């Protein structure tokens, strides 16, 4: 037994010796907390980083903790930063607060690509390589659904050269499931064999209310000349589970291991840190923990505390809380409500987007990115930004002293619009808005639905087409903002302190569906007409018309006696 303890420390020492080349680091963590409505949120993060030569030098060939295939993709397609997520389910902003890693339903890929190389070709190749790696249909990303956002997404890395181009695409219909999770898990250093990743039981996580898996890759220059960089590969998994549905739910207590129906049997010692954190509303709720934590850390941003357990050491058999935790309200100050589809019929329609600022003192600036497929013909002249002045929106009232601001808001020229081109590019609407305190804004516009070609419809054409989520980046002012100094929202957005990204839910649009047996009907109809035409002309040419010759007193029977035609 004693011998057992010694190797542990020795191994740890050896690790640092082994890692001298480029100093790769790996840390894994899962944060678990109760949500307001009793659901459990688990957020897994697996972060790796390593010092590497610059991206343009193609110098990285030997991999230890970094996944070879990810680095290969990044190097080959010259994408110094890219983010990919697969999400299913609805994130309930109102009750759950902001998500740990915002992601829209379906698949989302956005990347910064090096402008020294062919950006569009590399973007297509990146999508198809990732599609192969994650068994997803990302290969459906092409120029017709790729957008070029301006400042909705902020780069987290830094690269050599300023010639960096962003591309963004979403596939709202992509269903994330086990076939995507398996390759995702295989990229982890300990796979799902050791460490906290063992908890990711597909039967449980895909059974939850919401799940999202993501991978974020970025290069960061270490010096001005960018000869050395850090390559960071972060994988994260967010799951919202319902403890009521798990078998281990007794009374109001829950335990992580029964929630996931898995135990951590093997430790992942190659990780620099491997921790499990339980988020508690305050320091006093420590008594509700099923087992004492090795560390309790306050989290100043949200005012909560985090009880930390070390997954590299010996783990207790139960990790959870005894009774329900009361988190006081949500911390969301601004939120972006679902897109609402208006209009009826298969010809015309409209979209309305709600943005609410629930904060009573601070104004917010939002940058809204709406990317619509080319088959929705958006009418920019119908674009309206309205506020329910004096009316109660939910529990909020737009107070009257803000009115003058609202008039200004609409007059500010902050709309960037790129019209769609059929089958070539989507339409892109980019709006910067000031959202005054305690106000609800509604942005709406109309569109026409166009007719698609027969072959452009999916196999289940009557189901309708999914419109991707719209993205809102919201910037908050630290302090109360002087209304008289309200400036151009674009400038205001770029100078805002915190920006958070939010997505709406995708909406389903019914497009005019053709009768798919039509081509055959057309073929038959045309052929019949042609045959009819041919037959009549042919008959006219070959038929002989003989007059009836009535010869009196002769009763000779024969040709032409009673027929006019033969």
């Amino acid at each position, binding site marked *: 037994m004693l011998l057992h303890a010694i190797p542990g420390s020795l191994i740890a020492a050896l690790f640092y010796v*082994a890692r001298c*080349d480029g100093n790769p680091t790996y840390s894994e963590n899962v944060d678990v907390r109760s949500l307001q409505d009793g659901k459990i949120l688990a957020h897994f993060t697996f972060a790796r980083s390593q010092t590497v030569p610059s991206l343009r030098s193609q110098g990285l060939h030997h991999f230890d903790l970094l996944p070879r295939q990810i680095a290969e993709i990044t190097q*080959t397609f010259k994408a110094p930063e890219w983010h990919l997520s697969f999400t299913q389910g609805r994130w309930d902003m109102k009750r759950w607060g902001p998500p740990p890693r915002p992601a829209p339903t379906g698949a989302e890929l956005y990347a910064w690509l090096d402008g020294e190389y062919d950006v569009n070709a590399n973007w297509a190749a990146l999508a198809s390589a990732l599609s192969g790696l994650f068994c997803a249909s990302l290969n459906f990303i092409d120029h017709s659904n790729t957008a070029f956002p301006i400042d909705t997404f902020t780069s987290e890395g830094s690269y050599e050269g300023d010639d960096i181009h962003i591309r963004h695409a979403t596939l709202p219909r992509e269903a994330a499931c086990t076939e995507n999770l398996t390759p995702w898990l*295989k990229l982890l250093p*300990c796979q799902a064999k050791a460490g906290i990743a063992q908890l990711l039981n597909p039967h449980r996580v895909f059974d939850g209310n919401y799940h999202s898996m993501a991978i974020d890759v970025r290069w960061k220059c270490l010096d001005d000349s960018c000869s050395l960089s850090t390559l960071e590969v972060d994988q994260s998994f967010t799951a919202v589970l319902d403890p009521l549905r798990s078998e281990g739910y007794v009374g109001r207590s829950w335990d992580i291991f029964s929630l996931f129906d898995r135990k951590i049997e093997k430790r992942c*010692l190659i990780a620099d840190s491997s921790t499990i954190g339980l988020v508690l509303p305050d320091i006093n709720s420590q008594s509700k923990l099923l087992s004492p934590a090795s560390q309790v850390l306050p989290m100043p941003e949200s005012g909560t505390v985090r009880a930390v357990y070390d997954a590299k050491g010996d783990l207790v058999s139960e990790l959870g809380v005894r009774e329900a935790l009361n988190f006081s309200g949500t911390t969301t100050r601004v939120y972006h409500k679902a897109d609402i589809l208006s209009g009826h019929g298969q010809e015309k329609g409209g979209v309305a987007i709600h943005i609410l600022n629930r904060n009573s003192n601070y104004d917010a600036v939002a940058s809204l990115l709406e990317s619509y497929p080319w088959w929705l013909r958006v009418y920019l002249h119908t674009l309206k930004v309205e506020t329910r002045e004096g009316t109660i929106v939910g529990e909020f009232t737009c107070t009257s002293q803000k009115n003058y601001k609202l008039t200004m808001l609409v007059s500010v020229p902050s709309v960037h619009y790129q019209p769609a081109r059929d089958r070539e590019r989507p339409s892109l609407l980019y709006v910067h808005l000031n959202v005054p305190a305690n106000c609800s804004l509604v942005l709406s516009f109309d569109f026409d639905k166009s007719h698609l070609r027969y072959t452009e419809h999916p196999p289940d054409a009557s189901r309708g087409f999914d419109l991707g989520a719209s993205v809102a980046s919201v910037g908050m002012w630290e302090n109360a903002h002087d209304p008289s100094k309200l400036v151009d929202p674009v400038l205001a957005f770029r100078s805002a302190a915190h920006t958070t990204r939010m997505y709406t839910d995708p909406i389903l649009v019914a497009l005019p569906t053709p009768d798919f047996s039509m081509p055959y009907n057309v073929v038959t109809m045309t052929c019949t007409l042609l045959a*009819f035409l*041919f037959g009549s002309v042919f008959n006219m*040419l070959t038929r002989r018309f003989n007059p009836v010759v009535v010869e009196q007193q002769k009763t000779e029977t024969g040709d032409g006696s009673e027929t006019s035609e033969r």
Partner: protein
Amino acid sequence: MVAVLQRLKGWIQRLRGRNSAIDVVAVKESVDETSSELITIASIWIVILVVGVPWWWATTRVYRASLPFDDIFDLAEEGRLDVSFAIDVTLHTVPGLARDDFALHVSDATKQLMDQNLVSDIPLVYTNGSVPPPHTKLAVSVHFDSADHIGALDEAAADPLDITNSSLVGKYHLYVLNSAENSVGHGDVTIGSGRDIVVYLEDPSDESQVLRYASWILSSIFSEERRSLRRVVSEEDRSTQEHDMIKMLPYAPNYNVIISLINADPNTSLISWDIGSLLEAHVRPLLSSLSSISTFSVQSQVQYHSGATVTPTRQRDSADTSFVLRPSDLRNFINSAEWLLSSAVSADPPINFLLYVPPESQRPLRICDSDDRVVPRNAFLIPRWGGVVVLNPKLDAFGTERTDADDLKTHFETLAEHLRQLLGIQRIELNQAMRPASLTMRATSLGNTDTGITGFEFDRLLRKRIVQNLVNAARTLHSLGTLVQSMPNMVVQDSISVQIKDALRSIKQTQDLLSQTTLPVTLSASRSASLALTSAESAFFDPTMVSKLYFPDEHRLAIYTPFFVPAAVSLFAGSFKILKRYRSRNLSKIKME
């Protein structure tokens, strides 16, 4: 046509006449009218058959670029792909023997011996109707270098021997030295690391001895090469193929070499490897000397926590317990579900090398052959895939398992040896079994420790790849031609035709280069042969060759049936009616007469 118009005119006039309600006079059936009817129907038929049907056929058929079928099927002719390689041997002997007639003697004797060995050559296997394996000739010519003298050996041996230097390919040196002066035995032969052979004789001026030794050494080396060239062109047949041919990877212009350290249990033992310098020492030199044949990209990775899919058998000896994998287990060794071995970006064929560290519960793990003996290097090779080395960490003084740099060095040597076999590099040896009893001989073959490949080996590989690529390109083109001809509905794009023509041109260029008498063309021939194969394969595997929408002729007819059937009914009915009328008129005419 004129007849049709006239008839139409007459018919309109008559119709008009009827409309105007003028009393019509009986129109007597005239000879003229019946024959004009006949002309009408005949012209309609002619228009349909001459214009309509071909036009319909032309507008509805699939696009097929014209392919040079004659040239493609010419490749299947016996002897069409035969190539001959010039082998140039410079003999270095005592000055007294350096006569041109003696060199001719050696050449003739070598040729004679090689012809005798021809009898024992392996039979060529191939399926009928395909491209037959070509006969390759190695034309050995021996001569003396006039400016040369015996003292040149040291200089030649000390040469850095850039084995890939194109001007040296196919040029060999045979030295005959005095055994006593060099204090070695009579009949010792050293095959050097470059392109040189040294034979030590008691009396290097004995003409008949030199002749017998030189001719036998040369014929032995090149007969062996001819055998390997024959094996390379024979079609796959497990029963006659020898092992080295099964191991050899199919040719590709680029390969991905992926070296993975599979550590099934990092919690008990962690292996650190200085992969950069290990590769630099053991693998890189070999790969860079082969760069004129294929290029290689090398990557390494470490995979943790997932073991092999087979469970080894526990074997208990008197002293210790070990775990054993038998040849039947090795087949399932690779855990392709959990080991990330493929590349996400490249379609080049991978060569995988695994250093496998078994979990603690399965150590020490040994690999046994079919006779249950432990394999010396604890490694095995998977033909055309890669190699696996099992690494059992040792326990050090602290009870921690560690692997030394020395161990890793041995493992990488094994890996380099596997790589040689996979790439088809053959060790040059003299075939002692066929040696005449009168010659005493002890042969040693020096490996090139700097680059991992000797000049002789490089040349042999080069010639093997040229012949193989040439034949494979011809076979691919031939099967492509057969395929296109057998499927008349297959779409053939222009790009396919361009690629096929490129491949044919490259085949011709290779042959032209090889038929030249000057030697330094072998490398260019190798390049054009590889180009021929790449173009032929890219034409064969082009995605447009497998059309997603495939319409057989029945479908084409079926689409037009709603038009053809009604049109045909009225056409045939009308024609019959007129023919019948014409015949009855003729009959009545005859009767009347």
